[in-house]
């Protein structure tokens, strides 16, 4: 009796899966082909753009940018919440950047730890009156005090009550900035010494049109740091961080370079982005209601430039300058981060839905935003449906054997090969980005690190990718049901210090040619 009940239930499941397969089969194949064609085009464009860029580095004239009295000043805005572990190192590194005119504005955003005290002790801060300008961006958490470094270094620390978002802290920093360009940097990030020179250059080459630039972000968990600068780039130790290293490389070197070559860049990372201050003020600063405030800012800029200015403009990705950041090593923290990114993307696309499929917004509206909607935001939905369908089909086929039924809906051989092609394509993209990195910047000096990166490119597809799709789906669902989004805490460990820092100071810098 029980056996026949089970058989009936399984027969029902069989019919359902059969219907699902018939319905989605062509959709999934078309989806897969379209997505991979887009990846292929982006990869080819990225390689072409990248190659051109690399060949020009040697005569790019960055020294002239440094020496030019007309080089625009940069305000580096650093939101900091509970960053006691690495804030002093980060700020020291920023203060020693090779750039003629800049100020560092740390916004201490209601930290519960000793972030402010660390800064106070190391930079000998003195309080000055806070005088907001008339056209300031409103902040949720009020500014409590403002401090200057007595040492004479161009450091301003703004203390404010926590406004519930990183965007609120960024806005407080932008309000206080005095330079024509603002650079948003994470508090746990370490910039290459010449990073600012490189991201500023597009503004000088095309001052009328360039409104924003971004650089590469890489996990620096395994890197060796000396006096706040990365002196030896190493791949992180744990496999989770190693996979993220490969992921970031693929996303930045191939993805963003490709989009930038197409003049269709929609996302500049909040960990390292440079913007014209007047444009940021004009769009009302960063959105404090969004957890994807960095992408939202760029989308707002696109929106604004098309609506109000209606003239040519450019958002540029610069492939060289690296911002080393601490990537999550705990799977729960990583899951929260990816869920937040997915939710942030949903918020941005919804807020700027007017641009979607609207020819007034050019490539951004007609191509880029639809791409992000169908392939980035809804991609995990399709991926998981496909994965679940195939798994159900295989499971039913195996179970059918128990009841002497031929319940095989999936051509096993076809399914395996299709899966291998999907995985293989992803591996090819990752290895292509590692090869591009090898031919250009050669950051992974040791063979061991290179081997680990290659292995991570393979391992990424054995579980991590599926987990990632699940986290992204959760992010989408949390946006759909409008559950309150929170940043959550990421435990900081800071970067590994060089042993040489104890014995002597060396100035070993990365060769990028």
């Amino acid at each position, binding site marked *: 009796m029980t056996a026949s009940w089970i058989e009936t239930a399984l027969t029902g499941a069989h019919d359902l899966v059969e219907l699902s397969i018939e319905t989605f089969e062509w959709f999934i194949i078309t989806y897969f082909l379209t997505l991979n064609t887009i990846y292929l085009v982006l990869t080819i464009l990225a390689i072409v753009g990248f190659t051109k860029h690399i060949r020009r580095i040697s005569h790019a004239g960055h020294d002239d940018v440094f020496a030019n009295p*007309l080089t625009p000043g940069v305000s580096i805005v650093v939101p900091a919440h509970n960053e006691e572990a690495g804030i002093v190192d980060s700020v020291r590194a920023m203060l020693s950047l090779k750039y003629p005119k800049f100020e560092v504005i740390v916004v201490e955003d209601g930290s519960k730890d000793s972030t402010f005290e660390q800064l106070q002790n190391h930079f000998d801060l003195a309080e000055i009156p806070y005088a907001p300008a008339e056209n300031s961006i409103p902040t949720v958490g009020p500014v409590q005090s403002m401090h200057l470094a007595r040492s004479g270094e161009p450091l301003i620390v703004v203390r404010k009550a926590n406004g519930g978002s990183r965007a609120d802290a960024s806005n407080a920093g932008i309000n206080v900035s005095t330079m024509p360009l603002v650079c948003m940097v994470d508090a746990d990030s370490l910039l290459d010494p010449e990073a600012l020179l490189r991201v500023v250059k597009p503004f000088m080459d095309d001052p009328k049109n360039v409104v924003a630039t971004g650089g590469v972000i890489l996990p620096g968990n395994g890197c060796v740091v000396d006096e706040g600068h990365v002196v030896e780039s190493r791949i992180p130790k744990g496999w989770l961080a190693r996979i993220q290293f490969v992921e970031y490389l693929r996303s930045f070197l191939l993805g963003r370079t490709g989009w930038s070559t197409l003049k269709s860049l929609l996302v500049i990372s909040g960990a390292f982005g440079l913007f014209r201050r007047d444009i940021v003020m004009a769009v009302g600063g960063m959105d404090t209601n969004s957890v994807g405030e960095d992408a939202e800012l760029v989308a707002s800029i696109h929106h604004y430039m098309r609506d109000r200015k209606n003239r040519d403009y450019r958002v540029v990705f610069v492939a060289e300058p690296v911002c080393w950041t601490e990537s999550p090593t705990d799977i729960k923290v990583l899951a929260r981060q990816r869920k937040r990114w997915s939710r942030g993307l949903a918020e941005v696309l919804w807020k700027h839905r007017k641009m979607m499929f609207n020819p007034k917004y050019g490539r951004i509206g007609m191509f880029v935003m639809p791409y992000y909607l169908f392939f980035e935001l809804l991609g995990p939905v399709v991926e998981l449906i496909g994965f679940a369908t195939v798994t159900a089909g295989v499971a039913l086929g195996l179970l059918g054997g128990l009841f002497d039924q031929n319940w095989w809906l999936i051509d096993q051989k076809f399914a395996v090969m299709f899966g291998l*092609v999907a995985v293989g394509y992803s591996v090819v993209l990752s290895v292509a980005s590692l*090869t591009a990195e090898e031919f250009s910047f050669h950051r992974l000096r040791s063979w061991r690190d290179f081997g680990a990166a290659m292995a991570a490119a393979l391992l990424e597809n054995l579980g991590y990718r599926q987990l990632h799709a699940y986290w992204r789906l959760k992010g989408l669902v949390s946006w759909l049901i409008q559950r309150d989004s929170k940043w959550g805490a990421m435990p900081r460990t800071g970067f590994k210090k060089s042993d040489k820092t104890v014995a002597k100071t060396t100035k070993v810098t990365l060769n990028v040619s």
Partner: protein
Amino acid sequence: MTAGGILVAALLTMAVILLGLTFAAMVRRTSRDLLASLRNKREARIRPMLLSVVTDDEPDLSFLRTFSKKDLRIVESLIWGLLSKVRGSSKQVLVKWLVESGAIGRVCEQTKSRSRVKRARSVELLGSSGIAETASFVADCLHDSDKEVRSVAARALGKFSEKEAVVHLLSALTGPKAIPRSIISMSLLHVGPQAIEPLMDGLLNRSALVRSVCVDMLGIYGAVKATDRLIGCLQLDPSMKVRVSAAGALGRLGSPKGVEPLVRCITVNAPRKLRVAAVASIGQIGGKQAISWLNSAMLDVDSVVSAAAVEALSKMGDEGCIILTELSTMDLPQSLIANQWLSRREINLSSRKRSSREMAGA
């Protein structure tokens, strides 16, 4: 072809690409390390020899005749690198060697190469060498079809420090192959004080962009003799950009002659940018007249102009501070800004005192 067949073909293609990419990366790593090591060994042997020759009273490179072809390639690249760092007889000897070995000729030819990278590299080398006879090759590249080559040529042309380069550089600011202003400006700075006369001639150029760059550069050069011409630009130029540049340049020049024209041309109806630039410049010039005008400007209806006036007063010594201290006690929006600038000034002064004490102690 069946679907299965397509998938098999795709898998095989991917496997080949994957192997190819991995192999290419590994070959690149190995060859790069090997070549770098070989090159470093050669350079380590040759560089001290070259350096000791160029630092001699009578440098002589005849010993290079005994070198192999590979070594001579290293010598050539080292000499190109040394050219911008040496002067006098040492430089002459190096240039002579480059001419006799045909290196200069080869590099000049490469300015016409099909490869844009080669053209850019050769132009850059010629610029760093500063060999006057090659300037025309570099000037020609200002009209190159490639944007990057034009930019490199502009940067290189300034390094010849020739007055004649100014006209070429200014003309490269406009037209379909225009070079960015920032690059031209830096190049004009490399030319040196002999650029001042042609820059003053450039104030009569038809293009507002050219006039604006000339104005900026005259200010950066501190060309006091151009004060009257700059005052003329401030008052009469039809382009607001040029007028704003002129306001900034007068501040840089610091001539008291500039105060009255700056004050006169600023009316309530003048654009904000011009008013702010004028206020900042009046502060830079200083003097009693400046202080008295800034005293009224700090109560301007435009908050940006008043804030600029407060900032300017904070940098004008004790007299400016007295005015700001008085303002800080009033119940006005500018009072808070005045307070802030007074605090900043105090902190800057104490940090300067501390640095002086530390240096004196050291």
